[in-house]
């Protein structure tokens, strides 16, 4: 496996959707190629920092406006 082939397999590697043998080839390449090892690690961290982000709280006014509108719709449906 060379750097270009590693790049082609990178997405599936990050999603853990690769076969054991491809994973082994990637790991062997990374033993020899520090740049690809860094690429793998930093890509993994990129996904992780986004994954870990909690969304900000919903403003109370937005919640209230929505629930009032739901109540109106509910009345219309019941009618």
């Amino acid at each position, binding site marked *: 496996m060379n*750097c*270009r082939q590693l*790049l082609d397999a*990178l*997405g*599936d590697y*990050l*999603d853990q959707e690769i076969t054991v043998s491809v994973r082994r080839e990637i790991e062997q390449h990374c033993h020899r190629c520090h*740049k690809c090892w*860094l*690429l793998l*690690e*930093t*890509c993994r*961290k*990129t*996904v992780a*920092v*986004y*994954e*870990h*982000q909690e*969304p*900000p*709280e*919903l403003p109370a006014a*937005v*919640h209230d*406006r*929505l*629930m009032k*509108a*739901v*109540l109106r*719709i*509910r009345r219309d*449906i019941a009618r």
Partner: protein
Amino acid sequence: MTSQSPSLPLTLIPEAELVASARVGDLRAFEELVRRYAPRILRLAIRVVGNEADAEDVLQEAFLKAYAKLEQFQGHSSFYTWIVRIAVNEALMRLRRRHGEREVSLDQEIDTGEDLLPREVEDWHPDPEQQFARQEMHDLLSRTIASLALPYRLVFQLRDVEGLSTEETAEALGLSIPAVKSRLLRARLQLREKLNRFFRREANPA
């Protein structure tokens, strides 16, 4: 409350039970679904339409549509995946009204022919999240994702932030599975490149 577990606090009731209760008119059950998912849907909407006011309208429309269509919700997917799909459609409709159909196309060929091979590959802090205050980190990630072109931004948001599967993302955006995969890889590589100068070991936290 028609739930099978009446003694459980609302926050612990499984999603499917909340949907079943909401469907037969339990407003508190629907409100719990709003509590659970509206913050994520608002963030998603902001990332698509680009501003808070429009995003709040998208959120409202999406949940109202979901409420009106609860009868039709089949439960093949989770309620969460379903509301994400409704919100994405709503947000794209709004963007198209503002910018025109062609500018907001998701299936356009966006391959710019540039090489995917990354330029700067440097060592990062072992735990970049520790380097920034919560709000700082939130702003940094929001700014970074906002700078991606819409097709990349949407695929990344649905796959890596909202946690939809490749198949669910393809369905929500009307893309093929290979298109989702190639867009996702490009999005991840672009974000990695943009975050590099903040997260590399030598960087001074802003």
